[in-house]
């Protein structure tokens, strides 16, 4: 790849350097080839249109039809707002909305607390810190299915390690006292724990990055003023972290609220619908069992509306940040 211009990379001739500015009368990054720019973007735009925008529109369109596997070729029958009316009167939908909200709030709060605590720990100096920082990312990178399978084994009521440990400590009378995933309350707790375990490293990474840029003299100054470690934590660390925690909470809420895989693979929404979230309801309505694509789409559209509300808040926040 030796080309003539490689040799001159280090010291471009002075008269050449001036020429693009003289011709275009603009800064160095702006080049007249706007057609090339468009051509380079076109394939990606096409993919977005075909695989995101069109399906999105088609999903909204479908929500006004009664359509199941049998009328796939005909496109179903137009029913207006029938699917939405069905939705509003459907107890399961409201239940799933509640479950999803509760699940997201609990999981995200725990993730933020645990993630921040771990980030603070990993921000203090100790031997092997870099290695530990890498190791704790493992859960985050592991395939969801593998994560779920391991935890199913750990939760096993008869020979699972979790029950064995609780039993050894003496909290339960018999090793098989807790049927983790068969009981509504413990199943909910169980799924929350797995979601926290898998996704808290994300919070650690983001918070740790922010912690590292907090100016140390803030702490020094506070120390001189006589602030103790607790007030330093609240007045400096937490205040500095506030914005980043807000963004992380928002992003994680969006993600967990729409997460299908963890909950579905662990419990299929059971037992007795204790872990039935909206994504699982979409799946069960449209893609499993009775395959009502129209009704499933209606639920998805409602979820999309919720998503857009949260995103609007997020973008408004970003814009405020940019202005700072």
């Amino acid at each position, binding site marked *: 790849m030796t*080309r003539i*211009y*490689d040799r001159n990379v280090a010291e*471009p001739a002075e008269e*050449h350097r001036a*020429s*693009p500015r003289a011709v275009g009368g603009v800064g*160095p*990054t702006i*080049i007249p080839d*706007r057609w090339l720019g*468009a051509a*380079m*973007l076109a*394939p*990606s*735009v096409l993919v*977005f249109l075909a*695989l*995101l925008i069109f399906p*999105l529109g088609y999903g909204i369109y479908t929500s006004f039809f009664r359509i199941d596997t049998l009328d*796939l070729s005909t496109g179903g029958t137009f029913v207006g707002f029938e699917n939405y009316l069905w939705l509003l009167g459907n107890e399961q939908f409201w239940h799933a909305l509640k479950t999803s909200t509760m699940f997201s709030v609990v999981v995200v709060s725990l993730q933020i607390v645990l993630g921040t605590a771990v980030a603070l720990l990993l921000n203090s100096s*100790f031997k092997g810190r870099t290695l*530990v920082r*890498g*190791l*704790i*990312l493992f*859960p*985050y*990178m*592991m*395939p*969801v*299915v*593998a994560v779920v*399978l*391991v*935890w199913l*084994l*750990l939760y096993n009521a*008869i*020979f699972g390690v979790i029950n064995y440990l609780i039993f050894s400590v003496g909290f339960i009378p018999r090793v098989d006292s807790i049927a983790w995933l068969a009981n509504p309350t413990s199943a909910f707790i169980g799924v929350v724990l797995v979601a926290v375990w898998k996704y808290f490293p994300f919070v650690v*990474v*983001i918070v*740790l*990055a922010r912690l590292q840029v907090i100016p140390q003299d803030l702490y020094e100054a506070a120390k001189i003023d006589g602030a103790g470690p607790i007030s330093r934590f609240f007045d400096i660390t937490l205040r500095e972290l506030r914005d980043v925690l807000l963004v992380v909470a928002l*992003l994680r809420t*969006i993600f967990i609220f*729409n997460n*299908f*895989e963890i909950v579905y*693979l662990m419990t299929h929404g059971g037992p007795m619908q204790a872990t039935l979230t909206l994504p699982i309801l*979409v799946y069960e309505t449209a*893609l499993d069992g009775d395959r009502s*694509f129209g009704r499933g*789409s209606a639920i998805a559209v409602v*979820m999309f509306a919720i998503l857009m509300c949260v*995103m609007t808040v997020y*973008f408004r926040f970003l814009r405020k940040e940019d202005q700072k």
Partner: protein
Amino acid sequence: MISLSMRKRFTSVRTYLLVALLLMFVGFPLYWMLMSSLKNSSDIVRLPPVWWPLPTWEHYDELFSVTKFGRWFLNSLIVCSMSTVIAVFLGVIGAYSLVRLKVPGKEVLARSVLLAYMFPGVLLVIPLVLVFSHLGLINSQFGLSLAYLTFALPFVMWVMRDFFGSVPVDLEEAAMIDGASRLEALRDVVIPQAYPGIIATSIFAFLFAWNEYLFSAILVRDHDLMTLPPAMANFASAMDTRWGLVMAASTVATLPMAMAFAFLQKYLVTGIGAGGVKG
């Protein structure tokens, strides 16, 4: 009176204790997965648990000789490689164009990339099933890799956009002043410079695809064309008590991740920071 050095030592002991606790919390499930895959079937259900088994490879043997695990592994490789290659190629040139070239409406476009990236798969899956079934893309590995572009392409574009934005413009300018066309400058100057970033991004895009379950479960029903995640999920429910086999499968499915891990150390944090929205 506690002296300063004693207090310091106390703090450091506390730190190490907490780190040990953290590593146990994070590491125990992984340890248990590996150990269970190496236990014989009776040790798996034994109580008290066998913490350190005499290793047996029988489950790995069975995994590759009796089940179609090798096939599914290969399918995953094919689908994820296809989507990664397409996403990286399109994403890199697209991101470059977004950063360096004057394209009308590129601010809107940049923002839609982020929006696209945050878009949850569960909202796309119904229309994709309907559209794909019209186009004959159900049960197609190419179709599945197209579906994976919905998250892989915005991810690559988003990360590479940041990356190109931080690379100084001088080198490529100099190349073009010396007579290289923009595309030549891109190929010979910009991309070689961006290699580390491109490789890290590719690995992340690959891993996200490797870990994906929903699209794969819905769009590919054929037993022989399945990728690992849905195959393993079926596997577990069909073989309720074959935990050794299931754990061996989980361990092997985690391997590419572990390998990428060793390789990626340096980039992990950047990649997750940019990509953590999904996944």
